């Protein structure tokens, strides 16, 4: 450090009030958070592989057995092809829904406190976390995607479809991770969070179109599935990933629901995030 005297901190662009400068400040802060988080992933990628085990089992065991029974009407698709995007979405959900644990860990130390006294806006901090979760999901998605390919699912490989799958996986991860962060902000302790996490994942998974079509469901379950964001993620993935699959809800609606969900959750999480330091 030089003896620069009581340096006035750089008048930040973010404070200058111009919308464009604010936006660039927001983006820079979000990227700072995201890249710090992703450094950790780069350093310890083992979790990505351990997390690939479960989808592999679903596809190999559950998928193979149910393919034989033909108990589930999946139209022109084989059951394995039908459920592969569902299992991809499931792996995204199960990984993202426990993202809040890391945030509680950061609170139990004092990392959240440090972030919250920085001049970055709360929404940029939360957005940074969402972006990091999106990238984590993407890396994991690649693994499940390859497994599906190896199992002989007729996967669409044209660039636009693959890109669409990537975007959907990114958005799904960001959405459920932000939801998880929101829950963490409310419950604040690891024990309560684990309880709630367990409680949420299975209903979210079964009340969706991941492993059976909505048309098979009794009305009450169908009503739940139709407000479950996982349904829209699965629909987008299935349509974009599997040859011959037909969208039920419409891909534009799928992305619109996920986009709106992410924005709403980020706003709510940014509002509650400071509670973690109180």
């Amino acid at each position, binding site marked *: *450090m*030089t*003896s*620069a*005297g*009581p*340096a006035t*901190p*750089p008048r*930040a*662009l*973010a*404070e200058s009030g111009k919308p464009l400068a604010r936006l660039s*400040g927001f983006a*820079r*802060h979000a*990227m*700072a*958070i995201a890249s*710090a988080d992703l*450094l*950790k992933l780069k*350093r*310890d990628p083992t979790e990505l592989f351990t997390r690939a085990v479960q989808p592999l089992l679903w596809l190999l065991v559950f998928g193979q057995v149910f393919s034989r029974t033909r108990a589930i009407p999946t139209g022109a698709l084989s059951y394995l092809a039908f459920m592969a995007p569902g299992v991809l979405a499931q792996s995204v959900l199960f990984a993202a829904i426990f993202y809040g644990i890391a945030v509680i860990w*950061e609170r*139990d*130390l*004092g*990392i959240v*406190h*440090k*972030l*919250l*006294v*920085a*001049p*970055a806006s709360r929404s940029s901090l939360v957005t940074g976390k969402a972006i990091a979760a999106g990238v984590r999901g993407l890396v994991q998605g690649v693994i499940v995607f390859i497994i599906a390919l190896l199992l002989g699912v007729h996967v669409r490989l044209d660039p636009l479809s693959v890109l669409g799958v990537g975007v959907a996986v990114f958005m799904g991860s960001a959405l459920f991770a932000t939801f998880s962060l929101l829950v963490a902000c409310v419950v604040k302790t690891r024990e309560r969070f684990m309880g709630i996490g367990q409680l949420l994942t299975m209903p979210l998974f079964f009340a969706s179109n991941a492993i059976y079509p909505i048309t098979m469901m009794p009305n009450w379950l169908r009503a739940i599935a139709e407000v479950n964001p996982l349904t829209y993620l699965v629909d987008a993935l299935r349509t974009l990933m599997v040859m011959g699959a037909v969208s039920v809800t419409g891909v534009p609606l799928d992305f619109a629901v996920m986009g709106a969900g992410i924005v709403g959750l980020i706003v709510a999480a940014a509002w509650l995030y*400071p509670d973690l*330091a*109180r």
Partner: protein
Amino acid sequence: MPAPESAIATDGLTRRFGDRVAVDRLTLSVTPGAIFGLLGPNGAGKSTTIKMLTTLLPPTSGSARVSGFDITTEPARVRRAIGYVPQLLSADGSLTGAENLMLSARLYDIPRAERKPRIAEALAFMGLTEFARLLVRTYSGGMVRRLELAQAMLHHPAVLFLDEPTIGLDPIARRSVWERLQQARRQFAMTILITTHDMEEAEVLCDTLAIMHAGVIAALGAPAELRSQIGPDATLDDVFAHFAGGAITEGGSFRDIGRTRNTATRFG
């Protein structure tokens, strides 16, 4: 902007948690460039005071200005002007020292071209240059504290808040933190508010001490002044016992102790 007369000024600052008044109508003022020590038994309200001044916790009533900015109406400006090392551990153990500093540099809008030199300077200042590329998880307690100080000072804040910065450190590590704080104050004319349980630290480091007890300030003055109030041969321990006496056995919930221990054991 004209220099504010007080680096920190509080007026009736109060915080309740349910029925419990953690900080009770606190009114104090810290002159720019001073090292101000906040002493008091567990549960006295020291951390709560710091959390309000750093905008982490909204006050129940009263007001405060830090570096001339109001903590409730101008929190963003306050945050830009301050550095803070929480009582808990705030460096990220799964990042390296340099990565922790880079995160701070980016969050504090230090321009890209300045980041690397600023980080190198901060590492050198804190004697961490050779450990910059090691994971913080592998640091000793003293190194972690110095890194946290480097993070908190990277943007050259006008006011630095340190919540028990030397708890759990061995005597040598403690001294090295003190020396760095004194040097930083000289170089950057920084105002420092520090909480501590350590009377030696209070004596060596602080220009002014406030002894806090049950949310109120029981005594205020320079260390020598406080000692002479009690008696000719009084130590700061005597001063502390006099003004916060009895509190040591009754104060401090299980929660407080747990949190303190948490800090002391660091990464375990």
